[in-house]
């Protein structure tokens, strides 16, 4: 966060959309806070609610970048379907609302070590690769029509394969979950 702001200050004279960059920072801070709460809160339902915050923040960032189609998809698929599925799963399985302490201390340490190293490597790589990038003033939004053109043009075969994949997944899921 601080590093992003520092990088933004570094070439402040470049023509940028100030309002968009400020909004980016505020939403990013909210997302980081919510993401930390997802894993630290003890109540599973609260965690799902914080997850909605993170996903809605991501959708808002996509709007700022002019990617309207991705933003709407993010809201419909992740908030509309995935989180609702989580909540249904929590309610239907009668899972305990409070989390349990299950990680042993050595697992906990190994997990901490791995995540800290991974975090450091990724942050270094991302800042080095994209740290100086800003939302430019002449940002052109990606039109949904262009997205559909590439789906039914360049990626036609992948699109067809996905429809096949969903059919196979639905058929298999019914068989595996069916009681017989």
């Amino acid at each position: 966060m601080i590093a992003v702001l520092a990088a933004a200050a570094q070439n402040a004279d470049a023509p940028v959309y100030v309002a968009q960059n400020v909004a980016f920072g505020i939403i990013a801070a909210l997302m980081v806070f919510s993401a930390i709460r997802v894993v630290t809160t003890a109540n599973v339902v609260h965690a799902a609610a914080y997850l909605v915050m993170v996903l809605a923040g991501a959708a808002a960032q996509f709007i700022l970048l002019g990617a309207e189609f991705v933003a709407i998809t993010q809201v419909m698929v992740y908030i509309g379907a995935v989180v609702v599925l989580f909540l249904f799963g929590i309610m239907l399985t009668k899972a305990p609302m409070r989390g349990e302490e299950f990680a042993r201390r050595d697992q906990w340490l190994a997990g901490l070590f791995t995540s800290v190293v991974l975090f450091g490597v990724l942050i270094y790589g991302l800042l080095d690769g994209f740290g100086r990038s800003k939302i430019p003033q002449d940002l052109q939004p990606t039109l949904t029509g262009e997205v559909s053109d590439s789906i039914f043009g360049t990626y036609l075969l992948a699109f067809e394969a996905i429809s096949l994949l969903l059919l196979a997944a639905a058929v298999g899921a019914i068989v595996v979950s069916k009681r017989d």
Partner: protein
Amino acid sequence: MPASLLAVTTETYSTPVLDWHALAPLVILMVTLGLAIIVDSISARRTSTVLPNLAGLGMLAALIPVLTLAISDDRSRELFGGSFVVDRFSLLMSALFLVAGYVTVLLSTNYIAEGDYHEGEYYFLLVASVAGMVFMASARDLISIFVALELLSIPAYLLASWRKRTQTGIEGGMKYYLMGVFASAIMLYGMSLIFGGTGHTRLVDVGEALHGSFGSEPIAVIGIVLTLVGFAFKVSAVPFHNWAPDTYEGAPTPITAFLSVASKAAGFVALIQLIFVGFLGRDDVVRPMMFILAALTMFVGNVIALRQTNVVRLFAYSSVAQAGFILAPLAVVAADDPAVLSGIVESMTLYLVAYALMNLGAFAVIIAVSRRTGTGEMDSWGGLFSWAPALAVTMAIFLFSLGGIPPMLGWNAKFRLFDAVVSAGTASAYTMAVIMAINTVISMAYYLTLVRRMFVDDAPDGDHTPIKVPVPLVAAMAITATVVVVAGVIPGPLSDLAQSATLAIAG
């Protein structure tokens, strides 16, 4: 900006040019899938021979356009601006997947019918997975590769948990699914970093960008490593192999054969395409990573295999170790040496074909034997020669071939792997060759232990009544054993085939 949100697109849409001949194998598989659903829902009897025949014929029919494409004059056909390429490499690999799928149908016919499993959906998912593999063989684009991987994996997750009434079946399927989804997420993140840096999804463009300024950035290295890790899971390379033994033991045995052969080969096909078309600009990253993966995979797989008492688990670890052998040539990729590069692709394709045939054959014998013994324990294999001499001899052929004893096919293929590694001529290449030699010896130990049990030991209960092997299993064994022996004695044609299986890199 907001005013333009709802504006009509300025670019005009141009219909993509479809080369139906190049797409024919996939189209035939999709038609088979549609027919399978319809036939399954209108057939009155739940257990019929219609569906296995339909699935098998569908895969054989898809082989026809593969053959006509192979004898046509075009060296390569590119669709969608080069994100779907049909070249000699993809044709040979498609043929491998289709034959492996057909043999899996042969292995499944009696197993699934007698086990009271859901039959129609089983073959439907099997064909769907094979369609994903055939798609993978031609996918030269990050999005296509990802979609192909999911299309071949998700039916495989479901098939692995087909024995849902048993604890091991559920456990194996669940582990495979969770680990697979985890690996997919890591891989997708790596792909998104590469796309973010290059702005391209086509592997050719990614390759060009890696030669440029993006190639020297740390983010490129992270992207490459994360993407390759996802496929290291798919080929069950150590340390991403934890799922393999439990999944192989819990899944229906024909599916175990399918996973250990076709699914693994698809992972290698993706690795070859990614590395040779996309990531060659950073071969200094790929080389050490593949060296560590290959060495660890061979040692861990072989050493743990030595201690196994269950035949299916033995083959699970054996297939982990074999994956290490196939990975080994990738540890010497050198972008500036075309001879080494073509040697690597050639030896890997040859070994993939050889490994697929001998492992499928070995699993056919395992299924035939466990039809009588009802268990996978190695003790039950004692004295196999006295009550089923043909099965014992066939199994010995496959075991010798897996171990790399002449004149079987496995020997020739393994020799080519050594040749490809040594021809790089660097210190790490010679180290890798030594590691491979040590591991070949270790692997011989457990393959020959099983041979000794079959020929020397006595039957555990003194029961020497001969067993009856169903026709589809005999056919599967006959196909694979014939090729393993004939192509071992006369290595020329298959080697030429592998040699011609070059990737259409340019373009």
